[in-house]
């Protein structure tokens, strides 16, 4: 995973993405017990291209040129299928801006804050998201004041009330 993260760091350094952070099940695993997943979900802020176009194409082209190939929705980077997900709404934009800086072995990386992972799960609302929310509540150290702010800012109070019932 170090090599994979190093490649993603290089993409950021080269300006192909403005900022990234690990999310999804691997992001959740940072805070709770290990969860089975086969993809590394990487949320990205993309630089604005000509005509204001936001596209993953430059990332895919660069990785392809380096010999990495696509596997379905993912790109296989150093043995790990990486799914690049552009920040497509204000919650994800905020989550990326406030992602936690950390180290994976000796490689710097970022992971979305657990409060944002919980809010994203609330917003997405699939069955597995509800299960994940329960795990966060049981196992993760949540900053409840911060979480309340995220939930309020992104209009998730109704969903949160239902979950807490």
């Amino acid at each position, binding site marked *: 995973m170090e090599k994979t993260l190093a490649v993603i760091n290089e993409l950021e350094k080269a300006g192909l993405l403005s900022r990234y952070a690990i999310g999804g099940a691997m992001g959740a*695993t940072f805070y709770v017990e*290990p969860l*089975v997943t086969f993809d590394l979900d990487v949320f990205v802020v993309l630089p604005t291209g000509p005509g204001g176009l936001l596209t993953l194409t430059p990332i895919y082209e660069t990785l392809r040129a380096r010999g990495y190939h696509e596997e379905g929705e993912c790109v296989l980077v150093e043995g790990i299928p990486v799914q690049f997900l552009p920040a497509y709404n204000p919650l994800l934009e905020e989550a990326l801006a406030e992602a936690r800086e950390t180290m*994976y072995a000796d490689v710097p990386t970022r992971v979305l804050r657990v409060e944002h992972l919980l809010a994203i799960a609330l917003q997405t609302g699939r069955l597995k998201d509800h299960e994940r929310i329960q795990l966060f509540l049981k196992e993760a150290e949540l900053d409840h004041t911060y979480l309340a702010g995220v939930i309020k800012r992104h209009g998730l109070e109704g969903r949160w009330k239902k979950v807490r019932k």
Partner: protein
Amino acid sequence: MTPELERIIAAKEKRRRDLATLSFPEKVAIVVQLQKMVAPILLGRGRKVYVWQMPASNDQPVLANFPR
């Protein structure tokens, strides 16, 4: 609930909490082990999955890809 069942459930919850406190690389290593366990079942159901290739601490590959 019987006392024995309560003890078992408490032990399971403790184990989960303990797992949650492991370092990120330790957790990733466990995820890869879980992938190895789950992949044959998913492949048997026709789902394409890819077990992560992670070097061990001595830089030897410990996992092979499942046939796709």
